[in-house]
Every structure is written in structure tokens, then in C-alpha cells.
């Protein structure tokens, strides 16, 4: 076991034990147990003592044992009515998890039939041969795909597209670095555009749902898509300035055909229809998680997506999200979240200041931690700020949620910040220092833009 993991193990156990032996005034007994679970999860997630999805499962396990009506603790004598354990395990089938399941099935089926590659070739055609516009094209295509598929798989696919381009360029051409950075950056940015773009969105949306706020697929896109588009152009410009292409033209091999087998056609049609129904949720009102069941049903009943494909789905990501959702439930139900935010006198902060603090913390944390973990740790605190009356209103809660989700996605400073960053650095085309300078600029601009939107845009459309 590495030193890092061992430190995490020791700190995690200390964190877990602390609330069991120390009594915090103003916090209920259940709140103490919830704090044990919170501290253990936070430390294990941060130090990756065990895989992050295992920590999520552990959270649900401890909640069932320590906090549920069927658990080992007898709460009958105290003023706390424990939730049935089904509430905790039901997070595994939360509507947002089902939405993601639909997205995963579509994404994996697309990979199976090379739909992602064919789309890329098709979409890149209009961008010509000037390096400047090729980079823009690569970024737009990456962002579009990563809005509906995993950022990681999109990056990996796009890397197969750019490696031959880079190989044909002069070794000294700065644009090689620019191109290699453009892919992960665009994937990180594209992930914010839709609810299924990236897991932190799921954690935030699920937490808002539990407050009785339905966030429609189309509404999320209204909030986040404009930002994604602006950020893409900014990232493009930043990379062009830092790494100006040395040549006038670059050749792009876009040969290859769209698969036309019966299965492939069924996939294209299902994909198109699902996305259409998702983005028009505001018009027809059918919930996106219900729509998500359609591709799962159609693709499996037609054997486009088979048993071995189902087994290959990234189930651990669903567990990771479920653990994040479950943690939020117990922190809210036991009063822990409220107790924690009550410890700081937030009324000294202005409203914008508060958003800025959460945004900056999310951005900083998720540069070092998983984006989903960051969102899972921050969103319960943000929600209780609102429910405890420190902040008002539905709009405030939604905006705080957006700030957290978007802030964690704009963390792209280090190779460890996101898997797409890790892939880009692994190609050997990019040094970590290049990623730090450009990632920092883009992250900070992103944070400022989030705050600008929360003043001039979101309040008027929520």
C-alpha cells in the first residue's frame, strides 16, 4: 500500500471514529453517524484509499446499517425518524441514474458500430485544411460528442484522429501541443452542455430533484449550453495564441464509410430519436429519464445491444453517482448539512460572493479530485444553505447547483484533473507545464463567466 493510501486509511478511520466518541453540541445522534460516514467518504475519496466507486458503495452500506429504520441503531427513544433502508438503496435506480444508463447504452452501442467515428469524419469535413479551423473543428466535434457520450471515450476516440495529424507535422510546430490540448479541453467543456454530459451534472440534478425541483433536459441545456459554446471559442483562442500553428495547411484523412447494416441503422434511428426527445423535453414534457428507457428497450430487444455489451457498461460510474446522491440524502435528513453550514456566518457574504466561493472551491477541489466526488461533497452543503433560509429561493438553489457542477467540470489544470487530461498527457505530445498554464487560464475565465451568467442570464430564465 502506498504512503498516500495508508495516510488516507488512517485519517479515514480517525474521521469515522471521531463523531462516535466526541459529542458535537447542536447535532443529533443520527447527525453524528452521518458525520462519521461523511468524513470517511471524504477522506477515502480524496486519498483514493480504495477505488472511488467502492467508497460510494461503502457510503450506502453504512447508511443502511447506521441510519436506516432497519439498521442496527435503535432511534425509537430519540426525536429522529430514520428513513427506510429502501430509500438509500433506491439511489441506485434514481431517475438520473436511469437517464445515465440510457446514455451509456447509446454511447456504448455507438462505439460498437463506430457511429462516433463516422460522425466525427462527417462533422469534420466542413473545416477545410487550415490548422486554425481544423483545431476549431476538432474542438466542436469533441464537445458535441462528449455532451452525449463519456468525455473519456470521446477523448480516446479523438486521439486516434489527431495522432496521425500530429505525426505529419514538423516536430517543432507549437500547434502539435495546441491540438493535443484542444481535445481534452473540449471534452471537459462539452460535458457541461447536457445533464448526461458528465457525472457531476447527475449528482447536482439528483440533489435538486430531492428538493422537489425537476430540471428538464432542455432547461439544463438552456442554462449550460451557451456557456459551453462561449468557453469553446475562448479555449480555442487561448490555444491558438499560446501555440500558434507554424504551417498553412494540414491534411486530414477523413476516409471511411458509415456502417449500413440493419443493426447500425436501428442504432442511428434510436440515437437520433432519443436525443431529439431529450432536447425537446420542454415542449412535450416527457421526462428525460423515461425517454432514456426507450433506447435501452429498443436496442436490447433488437439485439443491437447484446448481453456481453450490457456487461461491459460502466456500472461503477453509476455506483459512484449513487453514492454521491445517497450521501446528500443522509446529510440532509439527519440535519448534518444544516449543522455544518450553520457553523459559518454566511450572512456576511453577499449573494454573488457565496456563488464565487462555491465556484472557486469546486474548481480547486476537482483539479485534484474526481469531478463527481467534488460535486458530491459540495452539493449537500449548498442545498442546506438554501433550505435553512440563509439563501432564498428556487433560483438561488439552482444557481448554486450549476456553479458547483460547471465549476468542477472546468478543472483541467493537471493530468490527474480528469481522465481526458490524463489521456492527452500520455500521448507524450503535451508536457504537464503546458497543461497547467493553458488549463489555468481557461479555468479562471470559466469561473468568471459562470459568475457573469449568474448575474445577467440565469436569473432571467429560471
Amino acid at each position, binding site marked *: 500500500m502506498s504512503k498516500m493510501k495508508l495516510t488516507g486509511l488512517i485519517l479515514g478511520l480517525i474521521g469515522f471514529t471521531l463523531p462516535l466518541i466526541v459529542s458535537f453540541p447542536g447535532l443529533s445522534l443520527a447527525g453524528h453517524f452521518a458525520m462519521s460516514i461523511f468524513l470517511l467518504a471524504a477522506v477515502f475519496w480524496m486519498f483514493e484509499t480504495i477505488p472511488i466507486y467502492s467508497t460510494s458503495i461503502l457510503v450506502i452500506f453504512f447508511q443502511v446499517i447506521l441510519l436506516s429504520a432497519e439498521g442496527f441503531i435503535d432511534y425509537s427513544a430519540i426525536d429522529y425518524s430514520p428513513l427506510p433502508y429502501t430509500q438509500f438503496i433506491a439511489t441506485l435506480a434514481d431517475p438520473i441514474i436511469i437517464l445515465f444508463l440510457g446514455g451509456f447504452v447509446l454511447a456504448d452501442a455507438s462505439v460498437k458500430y463506430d457511429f462516433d467515428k463516422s460522425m466525427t469524419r462527417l462533422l469534420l469535413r466542413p473545416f477545410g485544411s487550415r490548422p486554425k479551423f481544423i483545431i476549431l473543428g476538432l474542438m466542436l466535434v469533441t464537445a458535441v460528442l462528449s455532451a452525449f457520450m463519456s468525455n473519456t471515450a470521446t477523448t480516446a476516440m479523438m*486521439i486516434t484522429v489527431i*495522432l*496521425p495529424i500530429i505525426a505529419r507535422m514538423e516536430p517543432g510546430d507549437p500547434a502539435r501541443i495546441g491540438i493535443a490540448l484542444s481535445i481534452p479541453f473540449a471534452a471537459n467543456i462539452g460535458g457541461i452542455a447536457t445533464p448526461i454530459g458528465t457525472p457531476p451534472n447527475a449528482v447536482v440534478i439528483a440533489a435538486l430533484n430531492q428538493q422537489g425541483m425537476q430540471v428538464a433536459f432542455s432547461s439544463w441545456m438552456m442554462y449550460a449550453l451557451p456557456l459551453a459554446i462561449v468557453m469553446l471559442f475562448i479555449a480555442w483562442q487561448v490555444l491558438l495564441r499560446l501555440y500558434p500553428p507554424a504551417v498553412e495547411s494540414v491534411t486530414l484523412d477523413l476516409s471511411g464509410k458509415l456502417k449500413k447494416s440493419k443493426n447500425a441503422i436501428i442504432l442511428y434511428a434510436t440515437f437520433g430519436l432519443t436525443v431529439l426527445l431529450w432536447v425537446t423535453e420542454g415542449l412535450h414534457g416527457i421526462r428525460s429519464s423515461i425517454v432514456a428507457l426507450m433506447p435501452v428497450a429498443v436496442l436490447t430487444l433488437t439485439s443491437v445491444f447484446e448481453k456481453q455489451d450490457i456487461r461491459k457498461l460502466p456500472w461503477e460510474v453509476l455506483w459512484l453517482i449513487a453514492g454521491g446522491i445517497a450521501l446528500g440524502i443522509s446529510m440532509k435528513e439527519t440535519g448534518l448539512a444544516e449543522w455544518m453550514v450553520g457553523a459559518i456566518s454566511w450572512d456576511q457574504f453577499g449573494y454573488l460572493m457565496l456563488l464565487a466561493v462555491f465556484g472557486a472551491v469546486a474548481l480547486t477541489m476537482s483539479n485534484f479530485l474526481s469531478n463527481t466526488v467534488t460535486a458530491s461533497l459540495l452539493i449537500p452543503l449548498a442545498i442546506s444553505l438554501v433550505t435553512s433560509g440563509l439563501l432564498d429561493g428556487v433560483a438561488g438553489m439552482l444557481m448554486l447547483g450549476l456553479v458547483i457542477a460547471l465549476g468542477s467540470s472546468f478543472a483541467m489544470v493537471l493530468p490527474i484533473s*480528469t481522465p481526458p487530461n490524463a489521456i492527452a498527457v500520455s*500521448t507524450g505530445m503535451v508536457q504537464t507545464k503546458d497543461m497547467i498554464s493553458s488549463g489555468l487560464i481557461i479555468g479562471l475565465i470559466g469561473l468568471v463567466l459562470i459568475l457573469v451568467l449568474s448575474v445577467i442570464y440565469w436569473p432571467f430564465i429560471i
Partner: protein
Amino acid sequence: MEKKIYILVVEDEPEVLDSIVRDITDFEALFPIEMADTAEEARELIRSIIDEGHSVGLILCDHVLPGDNGVELLVEMQNHEDTHHTKKVLITGQAGLQETVRAVNDADLKHYIAKPWEKDKLVSIVRTLLTDYVLEFETQPLRYMQVLDGERIADHIRTSGKLTDS
């Protein structure tokens, strides 16, 4: 301790051995290269590599050696579980048809390189075979991307789901 994937080069002529190792030196940063001039020495090296918890990903082996010949060594490795998956390559001028057939049938020979070889070809064969090995047996192929076939590794990540959003 980190598990390493070794490249083993078996060749009895020192100049030839040097020249092979020089040609594939770009891989050495991630795949330590071990050299032996007889089958017996190769066996000892393999044993110590395996004992330390590492593996042999690739062997480049001459056929004519003092003592046991190269094909015998390769067949023996094929029949041993620790080295069964090692990618096996003959690099030789003097293996007859019968012995070569034996290497193909009984040692799952991946490539026959005739001496004298071209550096680019050798490098490309080594790159392909090590990429095969890494994609089959490594859970984290990403770290090898730089020296191996990056496109294949990226495509493997795309299709295998070994790396996911977090």
C-alpha cells in the same frame, strides 16, 4: 513495487547483440531490456525476472547458440505458464525450415526476422508485439502510450471501458 514488463534479447555474438539493443533502445524507458548469450543464461534471467514479480513481454532470440538452440528455448517458454504469453520472435540467419516450422507450431512464433534486419522494421515489429502484450495483459495501458502504438491504445480505451469518466 511496480510490475515491469521486460524485453529479453538472446544472441551469442556481442556485436550483433549490441546492435539489436541499440535499435530498440527507445523502448527501454518503459520496458527494461535484459541480455543473454546462451539459452541457459536466458533461463536464469527469466527465473529472476519472474521471481521478482515482473514479466517477460517479448523475447528476441537468435537460433544458433552455444548449448541449447533458440527454438528449443522458445518452445520451452511456450510450455511454461510464466512465459506462455511472452511474444516470441526469432532473429536469425540460420534456422532451417524444419526448426522454423517447429517454432511456429510449438512456440506460437510471432515473427521471423532474417538477418541482416532493417532497424525500422525491427522497431515496428517490437512496437506491434509489445502493444499486443500490453493491451492483453495490462489494466492500465495508458502509461505505455508514448512509446507504443498510441492509436491502438487510444482505440482500446475507447472500446474497452478501462478508463471512464469520474
